[in-house]
């Protein structure tokens, strides 16, 4: 029925043929590109993989060198860095004691967590005029009541713990099954009141020894603790006997809510301790990392915790520290393991922090876990 173009079958170099040739050409070019530039990507499929390689094997030295030689993040494409990182995963990790000790001694000179991490009665005597970290004009006068809240001395000392886990909240933790490995650590740090409920404990574990709380969370989710307090207390109860760590003297807005946390826990007769970051420690840590190329308005809580952990623990393991939109294999992940709320842009320099961790991993100072655990 109907009319068909009689010339259509004779259209040798007509529109349709040209179109088909064009598609074929495009496909060939794409394939060639894959083969030429994705060498590493294909290589893994050709190489025979026989279990994790020894730490000191030449292959591993080479792979580690691949990462260490990336001096700044912008030197390579992100995918290239991911590939190198992924290749390194086949090597076993071992601590490099010399490198680690060197690094730790640098930290002890700059920051000295074992005596300055928290405000204590020893390092902040009564009547001290405490300077805030960012509100440089702001001064907090330590009176009797606040002074009594401080611990007598730092509760932790240098290299007290054998194996520590610092748990970030990166979406990379989702379905990682790392819960058991995290729980097996001697000391576990967590950031920003993360959920560790039944839904997540397989991936993130439950053991918590120190949990930080960002005062902005208290302000937003708990009305500065001026109204209900039980919900906040219930949230903290999940962490059982974990100490609560707050940047009370970061800026003037944080102080009141942070101090209120102490009152809440006292009122409900909780055993949990409340500690406050010493503002001078925070200043020193950010200054140190600024020197290492972390340019941000503020270093993240995770970075501060890792820095502290490096001084307090012999071996530091990082979980959930991965601030890229995709995992090393290129699959997109959520921002946090529990939600996908992106942070305020330009506040933290997460990629640069992670990049530093990867470096430190390659040098054997700490270990970054980005894959799944057995």
């Amino acid at each position, binding site marked *: 029925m109907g009319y068909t173009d009689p010339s259509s079958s004779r259209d040798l170099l007509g529109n349709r043929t040209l179109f088909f040739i064009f598609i074929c050409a495009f496909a060939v070019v794409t394939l060639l590109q894959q083969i030429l530039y994705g060498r590493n990507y294909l290589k893994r499929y050709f190489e025979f993989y026989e279990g994790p390689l020894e730490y000191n094997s030449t292959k591993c030295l080479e792979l580690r060198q691949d990462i260490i030689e990336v001096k700044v993040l912008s030197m390579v494409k992100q995918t290239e860095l991911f590939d190198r990182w992924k290749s390194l995963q086949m090597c076993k990790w071992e601590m490099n004691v010399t490198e680690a000790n060197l690094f730790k001694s640098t930290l002890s000179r700059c920051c000295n967590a074992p005596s300055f991490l928290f405000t204590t009665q020893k390092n902040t005597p009564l009547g001290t005029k405490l300077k805030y970290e960012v509100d440089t004009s702001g001064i907090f006068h330590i009176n009797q009541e606040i002074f009594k809240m401080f611990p007598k001395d730092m509760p932790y000392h240098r290299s007290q713990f054998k194996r520590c886990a610092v748990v970030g909240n990166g979406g990379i933790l989702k379905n990682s099954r790392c819960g058991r490995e995290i729980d097996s650590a001697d000391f576990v740090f967590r950031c920003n009141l993360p959920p560790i409920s039944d839904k997540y404990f397989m991936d993130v574990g439950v053991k918590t020894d120190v949990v930080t709380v960002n005062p902005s969370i208290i302000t937003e989710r708990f009305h500065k603790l001026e109204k209900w*307090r039980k919900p906040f207390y219930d949230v903290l109860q999940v962490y059982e006997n974990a100490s609560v760590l707050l940047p009370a003297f970061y800026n003037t807005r944080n102080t009141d809510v942070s101090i209120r946390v102490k*009152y809440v826990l006292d*009122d409900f007769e909780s055993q949990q301790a409340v500690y406050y970051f010493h503002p001078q420690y925070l200043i020193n840590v950010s200054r140190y990392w600024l020197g290492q190329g972390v340019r941000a308005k503020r270093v993240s809580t995770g970075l501060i915790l890792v820095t502290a952990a490096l001084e307090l623990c012999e071996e530091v393991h990082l979980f959930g520290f991965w601030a890229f939109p995709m995992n090393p294999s290129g699959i997109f992940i959520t921002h946090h393991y529990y939600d996908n709320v992106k942070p305020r842009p330009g506040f933290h320099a997460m990629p640069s922090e992670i990049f530093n961790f990867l470096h430190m991993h390659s040098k054997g100072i700490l270990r970054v876990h980005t894959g799944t655990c057995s």
Partner: protein
Amino acid sequence: MAGLAWKWPRTRLPVGASALGVFVLCWLYVFPVYRLPDEKEIVQGVLLQQGKAWRRNQTAAALFRKLLEECCDPGQLFAMTKMNSPMGKNLWFDGEFLYSVTIDNATYSLFPQATPFQLPLKKCSVVGNGGILKKSGCGKQIDQADFVMRCNLPPLSREYSKDVGSKTQLVTANPSIIQKRFQNLLWSRKAFVDSVKVYNHSYIYMPAFSMKTGTGPSLRVYYTLADFGAKQAVLFANPNFLRDISKFWKSKGIHAKRLSTGLFLVSAALGLCEEVTIYGFWPFSVDLHGKFISHHYYDNVLPDSGFHAMPEEFLQLWFLHKSGVLRMQLEPCEDPPLIQPSA
């Protein structure tokens, strides 16, 4: 002199007229037209009445209750409830000039469905905090009532329970107390929760919507008690009720910036209860026998002058006592125990 003459108006009152004006003012100052009887006269008046037996006048009580119901409707409007304050209602504060809040979802959820009492209440005791209660031994009599109302979170510790009783169904709390004694409940709240434990299962009645500064502390009292799972419940005073009561008493001739909590409570009790007995309403510095007494039964902190008109309020209550609407207990309920001379 020329300059002065320029400033003064050409025509002015004759000297005699101004002198007369000044004289009249002085006269009124020395012998005011409206004058409150002073303390001694009131005590004398009370003493004259004291000998006579008091009898409840049912008709007068019913009449007064009807009067209150017409003006203020205590049964419905006594507290903020979901029924009388629907969401979105504009609430005008009774202690502020032209200030209102709209009831939002969060606030609405704090109100009970309706006034949570079994109305009408049978026998009520309203306990003021007057120093006259000290060594009165009225505790037992106060506790015999079905419903005991107290003012401003009074102490009920063991040393006072003989005089003021221990039972409480309703206790008012002034936001200013929360502010002074408990730092607005912004810091530690345990002290507050512990201090209201003596009131057992009672309602804490707070004027949350009278003053701007009172709203925050009052709501915080609610949050605090809910957080701790305390036995006490919070009722918020209805500003419309408070305003109506003030108007009612103003029309009866009480000139004060604000009525005292005690009078609010007595008015509410008169509307809610069938029999009302009031204790500890005695704002004078001497008792009926001329002995000096402290201002409160627990301390002697005098209030700011010129805020409440206590003597006027007392006279009104005394008038109600005389007409048999309520009973005012001023004498000790039982003879004070003789002090045993130590051997």
